[in-house]
């Protein structure tokens, strides 16, 4: 069977299964009650997107600093960066959010839950972005460093003219995949009352006694964002490898 047809069939089968679940696993589903509050849903949707994009940008910056530190020739800088990454990567996001909101927030006198939540997500994602940079920088081979050193490029010039321009293409697909992880991760922000999609839906569905409907809508909304992103990432990865 052709690739295209196979995919079409697969998509149809899975969509039907999902629709079956959405409509026939609950007695008397009340999606109408949930969709009534579409304004809140849209706000939640925007909050999720906003939090995720801000997190992506911030964790790209912090991840880059971490990446540079891990590549540092100074052992002490390298060691601090590596151990930091290990600790963060071993910490569940849930705990990270609690630490940010109830500990760090108190120390730095910030009480805005959105800001602290994004801060937690950013810290949580930074090592993953650092890893993405590490994979991307491998495209610059040893011979190029020989030439840069022969002409005595400064560290800044190496990154500015040679290394970063070559990292961008291999980096794009993994940035998008990381954005997907961030979007899914942001669902946990509801535990500190950031009104993202998942928080909004929890509120609406408990108000209407329609918990399962709420989760189904939540699921579909996340799929609507993450699947196109994943397709985009695959497309870019293919373009990049040519």
């Amino acid at each position, binding site marked *: 069977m052709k690739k295209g047809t196979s995919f079409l069939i697969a998509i149809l089968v899975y969509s039907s299964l999902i629709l079956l679940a959405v409509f026939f696993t609950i007695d008397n589903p009340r999606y109408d009650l949930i969709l009534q509050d579409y304004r809140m849903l849209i706000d939640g949707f925007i909050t999720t997107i906003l939090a995720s994009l801000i997190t992506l940008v911030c964790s790209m910056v912090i991840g880059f600093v971490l990446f540079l530190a891990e590549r540092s020739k100074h052992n002490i800088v390298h060691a601090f960066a590596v151990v930091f990454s290990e600790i963060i990567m071993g910490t569940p996001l849930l705990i990270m959010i609690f630490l940010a909101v109830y500990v760090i927030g108190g120390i730095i006198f910030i009480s805005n839950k959105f800001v602290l939540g994004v801060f937690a997500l950013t810290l949580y994602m930074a090592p993953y972005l650092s890893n993405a940079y590490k994979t991307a920088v491998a495209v610059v081979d040893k011979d190029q460093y020989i030439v840069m050193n022969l*002409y005595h490029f400064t560290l800044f010039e190496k990154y500015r003219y040679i290394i970063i*321009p070559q990292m961008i293409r291999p980096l794009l697909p993994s940035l998008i995949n990381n954005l997907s992880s961030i979007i899914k991760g942001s669902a946990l922000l509801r535990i500190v009352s950031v009104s993202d999609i998942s928080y909004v839906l929890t509120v609406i569905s408990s108000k209407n006694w329609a918990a399962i409907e709420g989760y189904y809508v939540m699921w579909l909304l996340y799929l609507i964002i993450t699947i196109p992103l994943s397709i985009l990432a695959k497309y870019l990865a293919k373009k990049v490898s040519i």
Partner: protein
Amino acid sequence: MNIKINNLTKTYDNQIVLDNISLEINNTSTIGIIGKSGCGKSTLLRQLAGIEEPDGGEIIIDGLSPITDKIEFQKSIGVVFQKHNLFPHLTLKENISLILRKAKNMNKQKADSIAKQLLEKLFIENEADKRPNMVSGGQNQRCSIARALATDPKLIFLDEPTAALDPILTNEVLKAVNQLKNEGINFIFVTHEIHFLKQFADYIIFFENGIICEHGDVSCLQNPQTTHLAQFLGGI
């Protein structure tokens, strides 16, 4: 050019590639290094150009040491690598103009126009706006020669500059480097091309098993003193 090498040694993972080499050559302008594949010619060139640090020994080329006066020394050399080593994300022109801007503090416009001239000198001006993966091996090789010229070097290291070239282009490159030689630039080069060697070298170094087996004026190719060199020449 005057070269003095004392007890030069280089080892890679317990494999001795340069074994206590000593040599003195005075008043010569082109030195050709020959020897079997894998015998350490590129390694010797890298030590002489200051790209790698030897494990031991001294090198003095025209009063400067590529080891201890590396920065000063490298300002006046150019290097053409065995693999062209051009930056893959830059066009041929940008590969050269970046070096001009960096090494000679030129603005972009001036650097671009000089880069163009250098590419013309090596007959690849039509390829100026292509990236290395879009042009042939020989065109990359010539671009890499053009890049080596960018810093107005007094001495150029060439590691098999004609390996990727057909006979006609080999002759073009030979013409180009001979002209540079006449302009007063010195060369230390590695080659497998006996014709190129005979036409270009003043002095030859024959290398085998990590030591210099025979060296002398290019005329020694006519009547080799060691059986090793005789065999080597007989083989090519």
